[in-house]
């Protein structure tokens, strides 16, 4: 066992930012918008770092796919306690078409190359809400998967995972190597403080191209339209109870 954990981190538009759709409906506005690490990826990083602090694993490697700015996200992961980073550089058209399938191919290739014992990802990203990358990575590697994990315990050569499922919890045991995806209640991620960000600058980030990993990034999906959700209709003020009853009758509510 290598004791190495691969953690995927995604750079997304910050959760607190109001999302705007581009006027031509081709996507959302990303220029000049604050980006940060996907909250579920933060939980994944925290879990890996916790496992390392308990000395159950030896090394935490943070991976991100995307343009130059993705390095900031990796830096945040390093500040949270990851040991080193891998930046898979994907730019321009390829980045626009980068979906869960392409990312999972990259992650699967890296997991093999780095001889990882575990791959921990966030259950989904808050930008595309796909919730597929972990599952696809497990499928491509033919490894067991523990998705929506709300509790993870390493036991010898097995991992006990408590999963959040509809209306309750499910406890499973999987063999290693495995792919885990983090749910919201798994842990409370630590904050990347300024001193830690500074210290993280000394840690190494390797730059890799998808071609070096032998990964083909062609996408089979085409985005047709991106639209804003329907706006909420304005309400009306009524003067009297009779008006109210009349309006409600009109709307067919009573």
């Amino acid at each position, binding site marked *: 066992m290598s004791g190495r954990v691969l953690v995927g981190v995604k750079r997304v538009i910050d*959760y607190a930012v109001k999302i705007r759709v581009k006027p031509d409906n081709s996507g959302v506005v990303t220029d000049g918008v604050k980006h940060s690490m996907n*909250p579920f990826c933060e939980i994944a990083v925290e879990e890996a770092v916790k496992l390392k602090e308990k000395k159950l694993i030896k090394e935490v490697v943070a991976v991100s796919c995307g343009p130059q700015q993705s390095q900031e996200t990796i830096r945040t992961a390093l500040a949270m306690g990851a040991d080193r980073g891998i930046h898979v550089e994907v730019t321009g058209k390829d980045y626009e078409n980068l979906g869960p399938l392409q990312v999972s191919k990259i992650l699967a290739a890296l997991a093999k190359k780095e001889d990882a014992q575990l791959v921990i990802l966030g259950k989904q990203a*808050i930008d595309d809400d796909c919730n597929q990358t972990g599952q696809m990575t497990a499928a491509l590697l033919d490894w067991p998967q523990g998705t929506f994990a709300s509790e993870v315990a390493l036991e010898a050569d097995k991992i006990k995972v408590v999963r959040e499922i509809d209306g309750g919890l499910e406890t499973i045991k999987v063999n290693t190597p495995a792919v885990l995806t983090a749910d*919201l209640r798994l842990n409370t991620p630590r*904050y990347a*403080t*300024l*001193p830690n960000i500074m210290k993280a600058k000394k840690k190494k980030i390797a730059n890799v191209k998808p071609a070096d990993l032998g990964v083909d990034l062609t996408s089979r999906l085409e985005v047709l339209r991106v639209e804003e959700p329907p706006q909420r209709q304005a309400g009306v003020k009524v003067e009297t109870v009779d008006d109210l009853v009349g309006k409600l009758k009109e709307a067919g509510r009573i």
Partner: protein
Amino acid sequence: MANPLRGEVIKLYKNLLYIGREYPKGSAYFRERLKSAFMKNKDVTDPEKIKKLLARGDFVIKELEALYFLRKYRAMKQRYYEQDK
């Protein structure tokens, strides 16, 4: 003038300034408050008192971290999980 704790105080100020960038009411609002809070105690020279103030600053950092976490957690919970009583 050159207090041995001077470096510590500057470090605390920098850390607070950094963490304040994410403050919900905006970093400008936070910076103003931060500066006035530090200026209020600029004449403190007693090392014991400065140490107490530094500890208070560290406490504020901890509180802010907790605030940010809770804010994010609540946002995620509202968006992705059904509200169950």
